């Protein structure tokens, strides 16, 4: 009898241990904890997840490939949150069969994603972008932009479709390179109420040309809307980007869903939080109408 009870007790004890080990803590791999936006995503993830997670910071010199591989094989976590491309690629290479949630990867489409991997894109949903543009500039009817076939054609088409939903006509002009923009500029700006500066690696490759483009728009009293924070300092009137702390929280939400057996319907979600920089000084200089209600939603107001 005693033997039976003891066996039963040991079985129950082992079953409990097994159950606990099934839900291991997630592993966070950070491409470089020294980079502010990566750190912000990690911090908000840890706060939102409500439990401890192990962290590997690839910015630390000790993480050579051999050491990293050994650590990942030893830990063999069920689920990984990878912040940045370096972290995601490392996790994919060594334990790609595991569930990985990534964030903070610019243009994630250039990376091959394996099944069972999820992510949050770095770029806001085009619908969110156009809604926020409408929020700041309710009188804008026609918006011009440049795009390249190779990098931003898809983004342009997505924006165009979303623009229709907000009552804005978006007119894109295909260019091959930065030099084309000079000659195409005046024609592109004719009849435009605003100009969108897409984050195209070709079009943004020459800072001087970018500044000239922005200056030309401002001379013609056409507000520039961009998606990189640095453009605000260069004279853009409005900058829209991803709110990184929200991205960390969103990654925690995705992992919670996956753990509940309800993975997100869309493998790569758009960011749930937006960040706005309103360059009020520029807007007032241009004397273009804007909705001052946008100030409530601005993360930063340049005055």
């Amino acid at each position: 009898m005693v033997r039976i009870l003891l066996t039963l007790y040991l079985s129950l004890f082992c079953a409990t241990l097994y159950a606990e080990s099934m839900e291991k803590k997630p592993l966070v791999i950070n491409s470089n904890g020294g980079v502010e936006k990566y750190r912000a995503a990690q911090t908000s993830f840890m706060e939102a997840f409500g439990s401890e997670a192990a962290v590997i910071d690839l910015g630390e010199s000790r993480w050579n490939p051999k050491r990293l591989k050994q650590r990942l094989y030893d830990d063999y976590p069920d689920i990984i949150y990878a912040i940045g491309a370096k972290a995601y690629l490392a996790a994919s290479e060594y334990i790609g069969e595991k569930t990985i949630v990534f964030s903070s990867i610019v243009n994630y489409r250039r990376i091959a994603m394996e099944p069972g991997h999820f992510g949050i894109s770095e770029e806001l949903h085009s619908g969110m972008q156009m809604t926020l543009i409408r929020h700041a500039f309710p009188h804008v009817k026609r918006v011009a932009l440049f795009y390249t076939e190779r990098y931003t054609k898809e983004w342009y088409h997505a924006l165009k479709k979303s623009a229709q939903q907000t009552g804005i006509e978006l007119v894109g002009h295909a260019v091959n390179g930065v030099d084309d923009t000079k000659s195409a500029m005046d024609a592109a700006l004719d009849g435009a109420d605003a100009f969108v500066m897409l984050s195209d690696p070709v079009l943004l490759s020459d800072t001087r040309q970018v500044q000239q483009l922005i200056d030309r728009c401002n001379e013609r009293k056409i507000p520039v809307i961009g998606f990189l924070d640095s453009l605000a300092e260069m004279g853009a009137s409005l900058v829209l980007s991803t709110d990184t702390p929200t991205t960390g929280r969103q990654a925690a939400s995705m992992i919670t869903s996956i753990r509940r057996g309800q993975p997100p319907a869309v493998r790569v979600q758009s960011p749930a939080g937006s960040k706005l920089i309103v360059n009020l000084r520029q807007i007032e200089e241009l004397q273009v109408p804007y909705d001052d209600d946008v100030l409530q939603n601005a993360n930063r107001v340049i005055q």
Partner: protein
Amino acid sequence: MRRLRLAFQLFLYGYLITGVYADAEPNNTLYYFNQESSINNFKELKTTFDRYLLKQGAYSFQPFNDEEAFQEHVRTTSRVIMLVSEWEYRALSRDMALKPLLIAEKEQESTTQRIAVTRVSNSGLEGYIVASAYHPGDAERIASSLLEHANEDALHYLRVPKDLDALMSVGFGMADFALTTREAYEDLVKLNPALAKELKVIQTGKTVLRLIVATSSDSDALSIAELLESMDEHPEGLKCLKMLGIDALNKPSKEALIHLKDNR
């Protein structure tokens, strides 16, 4: 000895007088906390307010991001003047004698309503990711009344920077429900009618007052209260108010005072 006694008396009176004067010195800082708003531009808020207030006199603005720190500070500061939500006003009123001086308005409305929203296609009210701009604890409190159908323990809260983000998160599939305000929803209807058509309001909460300017002592707050009341008459002052999502601060109406006394 007589001179010594006189000197001592003069010193004592002088000390008492300056002490009384110091005690009567008004507190010229407006303290702000609103747990129902995710304002992540605190530095901008303080800079913009200080720039305006300093021009009007030796006034300043101090926002708080943490409720505990805010409550600790206002409870231990004499003649404090604060700008808070109705919920915070009621919480502090339990053990502080507060007087409402001004009520915030937006487009001449001093009240607002919280709502819960989901996608039109979510007829079964399924899912559990709740997006909102509220502080986490407050999101749970608000959800308990607006998402009655849901199992509270199963809900997962996703905090986003602004009410519009919460609505767009539901619309674009990053969340299942949004806790937001009727105004934000009406704004989305104007900004993106096609997206707004895909959403529906499933519950409306009680009406609450917007921000309240309150003081623990009324005699010294009159000058700053007058200044705050006239902010909307100046472009720079209006800008400050707009950053808080309001456009005026006015004396409370009879209805507002009754509302504050009732509905506890």
